[in-house]
């Protein structure tokens, strides 16, 4: 192969290894703490084009319909900075949440970048289990549900109320503000039953929350 041919070949190979990191992200992983009352959280993922050519952001793809991602514009000149603003709406989610946004650019050899938003939504009260059920015909023995306040929280249970008189619920205080038990029992298990047991708390003080225990005879 002549020198010119070799040069063409090397150029072609180099093209396939074109600079793949035009956009440099400051904090592609963000971890936040929130409560259900916050309802939503916003995270800003900032970046800079550190390459020598303009970069076009083609798509932002969120892992969840609950998370939106917005960009001021699509094309970023060398040296220019920008940000992706992600907004995660909690809905009825609690606990550890991970939402990702996949960013694809026009850089031929670049792998998509995955922006990672991790939010812990602290529920002040944990109910275990949230469902008690019996099969029809089985002994209708009482089943116990544990209510536990989060370590840094005091949550008092004011009352428990069953929506169905054929399913009873009895509250027991184990340690006020911290630990309670609810004993749930159907009158009998001869027929299908459905009950929602409302657990009235005193937290938060401005709008105390009601939690639900589900009871079924199936």
């Amino acid at each position, binding site marked *: *192969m002549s020198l010119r041919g070799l040069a063409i070949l090397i150029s072609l190979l180099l093209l396939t290894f074109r600079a793949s990191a035009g956009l440099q992200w400051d904090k592609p992983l963000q971890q936040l703490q929130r409560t259900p009352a916050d309802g939503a959280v916003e995270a800003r993922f900032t970046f800079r084009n550190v390459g020598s050519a303009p970069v076009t952001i083609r798509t932002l793809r969120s*892992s969840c319909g609950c998370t939106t991602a917005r960009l001021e514009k699509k094309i970023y000149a060398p040296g220019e900075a920008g940000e992706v603003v992600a907004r995660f709406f909690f809905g*009825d989610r609690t606990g550890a949440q991970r939402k990702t946004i996949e960013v694809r650019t026009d850089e031929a050899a670049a792998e998509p970048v995955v922006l990672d938003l991790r939010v812990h939504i602290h529920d002040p009260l944990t109910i275990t289990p*949230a469902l008690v*059920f019996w*099969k029809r015909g089985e002994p209708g023995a009482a089943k116990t549900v544990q209510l536990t306040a989060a370590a840094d929280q005091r949550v008092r249970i004011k009352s428990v109320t069953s929506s169905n008189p054929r399913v009873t619920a009895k509250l027991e205080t184990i340690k006020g503000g911290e630990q309670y038990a609810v004993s749930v029992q159907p009158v009998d298990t001869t027929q299908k039953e*459905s009950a*929602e047991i409302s657990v009235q708390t005193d937290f938060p003080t401005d709008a105390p929350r009601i939690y639900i225990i589900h009871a*079924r005879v199936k």
Partner: protein
Amino acid sequence: MIARAARQLALVLALALLPALVSGAIQLQWRKDEPLAPGEVRAATVRMWGENVQWVDARTRAKYERTHIPGALLLNEDEWAKLVGPFLDAWDADKTLVVYCDGGSCDASQAVAERIRNELKIGGVHVLKGGWAAWEGK
């Protein structure tokens, strides 16, 4: 001169073709044998289970109302508190639950399956590998 240029072009193309073929073969194989994550199940397996399956649709209400797997129950985290009661009323304890969402990078089915297992303490919950797209055979 032309013959030499043609030879060089053929050589360059051959060099480019080789990695392309290897990459294509690897990707096709990967798609075929992509391993299942814990709790996941393939659409073909669920089809074999027949009537003993209760589908759970973890997508949004709008998508569920547009179309869903026949008999699927709607249960998602956006409206968990509102949907979980009706879901439990319809739930058959003798059936295996299989949760699905859109597929691709969607994580709603894993999240809903986890809440069914952890909060409701219902066992035997699976997640459909590939989600709705896999069900449609795409």
